């Protein structure tokens, strides 16, 4: 259908999608985009149409991918098998990863494109970032994280949309400092603390002083230095300190003492361009040691030499970890 046509508003929404996903859009452009969305209900409707392209089948494939790694790639290859690809030979493996690293590009969650793209601050795959907020607080984002900053006269609010942050809060008795997640909010009581947004729960851990946790369902708890809890809207579960609740990622590493390999893979995931999948059996292998986050390929190769596991790369976009037999 070479004569395909769409109306000008839809065309503008497509342009925004491509611009925002190009990785080159600056914060002021995001502001212009937000204004464009708010300007006219037709703009929002067009944006949702564009964001909704192939949404259901892609969401289905992602759901299957989570259960059985490799399916996304299998689906793409099957879809392309019927058409012959002319032109240049493609780059493979490590070289591509290297190029990607240089490009500094990040993955964007396609299922809900509205989330990461419009955030005030976000980090790409493998990127950490520290920003000084208007009140002097220092906010550090782990890789693949996104936050919105909402400061007012009465409150300093940071909305964690995805990923992980640590904050060193500057004192301001009149304006409480609060980090919100999809499950609740964590209020600083003069403090250094970390919050992570998981897929269906949040985690908070305190490095200095204490915080007050309020879940959406009305549960409340004070968390002290060295403590960590995971929480949903209705439940708070204290956690024994593990690599998950530590803040070693601030220094670009993760330390594990007798933890399952799956914990290490979780920590590496935001640093891996492409998919990183682990078989259930390999997930249970116990791990000790300190590992670098910034070079996942090397970390995985080292692991394969010391643990009974096999790391296989299926092209640049899928890495599988299995038990070695």
């Amino acid at each position, binding site marked *: *259908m070479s004569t*395909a*046509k*769409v109306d000008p508003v839809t*065309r503008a929404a*497509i342009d925004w*999608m*491509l611009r925002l*996903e*190009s*990785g080159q859009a600056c914060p002021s452009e995001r502001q212009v985009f937000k204004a464009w969305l708010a300007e006219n209900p037709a703009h929002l409707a067009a944006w949702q*149409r*564009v964001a909704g*392209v*192939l949404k*259901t*089948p*892609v969401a*289905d*494939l992602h759901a*299957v991918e989570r*259960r*059985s790694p*490799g*399916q*996304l*790639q*299998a*689906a*793409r*290859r*099957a*879809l*392309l*098998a*019927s*058409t012959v*690809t*002319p*032109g*240049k030979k*493609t*780059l493979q493996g490590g070289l*591509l990863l290297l*190029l*990607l690293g240089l*490009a500094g*590009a990040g*993955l*964007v*969650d*396609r299922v809900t494109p509205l989330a990461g793209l419009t955030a005030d601050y976000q980090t790409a795959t493998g990127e950490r970032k520290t920003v000084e907020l208007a009140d002097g607080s220092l906010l550090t984002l782990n890789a693949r994280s996104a936050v919105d900053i909402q400061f007012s006269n009465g409150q300093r609010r940071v909305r964690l949309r995805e990923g992980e942050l640590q904050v060193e809060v500057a004192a301001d008795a009149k304006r409480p400092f609060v980090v919100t997640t999809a499950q609740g909010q964590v209020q600083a009581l003069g403090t250094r603390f970390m919050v992570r947004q998981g897929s269906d729960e949040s985690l908070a851990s305190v490095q200095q002083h204490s915080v007050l946790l309020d879940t959406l369902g009305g549960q409340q708890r004070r968390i002290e230095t060295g403590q960590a809890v995971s929480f949903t809207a209705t439940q708070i579960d204290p956690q024994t300190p593990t690599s998950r609740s530590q803040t070693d990622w601030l220094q670009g590493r993760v330390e594990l003492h007798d933890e399952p390999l799956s914990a290490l893979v979780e920590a590496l995931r935001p640093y891996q*361009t*492409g*998919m990183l999948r682990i*078989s259930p059996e390999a997930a249970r292998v116990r791990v000790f040691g300190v590992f670098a986050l910034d070079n996942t390929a090397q970390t995985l190769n080292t692991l394969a030499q010391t643990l009974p596991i096999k790391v296989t790369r*299926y092209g640049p*976009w899928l890495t*599988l970890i*299995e038990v070695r037999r």
Partner: protein
Amino acid sequence: MDPKSLLANLYHDNHAWLRGWLSRQVRCPQDAADLAQDTFLRAWDARQLERIREPRAYLSTVARRLLCSLWRRRKLEQSYLEQLAELPPAFAPSAEDIALVREAIEAIDRVLEGLPSRVKRAFLLNRLEGMPQQAIAELLGVSLATVERDLRRAFVHCLSQTAECP
């Protein structure tokens, strides 16, 4: 004549012939029977039975289209199963998941049908696997501007189809 009688006549006069014609194309009686049934359903859905002047020419055109789409689906399914076979057994999906993937790739294939292969490839890498534009440019050995143009074309293609059949 009312539409139901028109369909009954059309069916009566041409069903055996259509099945015979289809049997020679697919060489599987079950497929031929299903396709013949689908062809009459399409004719009924078109609601223009009284306008059909050359029933057999009309029916074979519809049947040919259905046949193409069946072959396309089979080919897609075949290449998916080939891909599955290449993965290690530990990563084999459940039967339900395989069914879900088949449906999803059929849906995607229908929407992207008609796009050139490079455009399709760029779009799938981008939407399905979340590959950034720059990375796609490196992978396909084309400029960033080309990738952007390809993605735009694919979006326009998908959205203009949705507009046609809401």
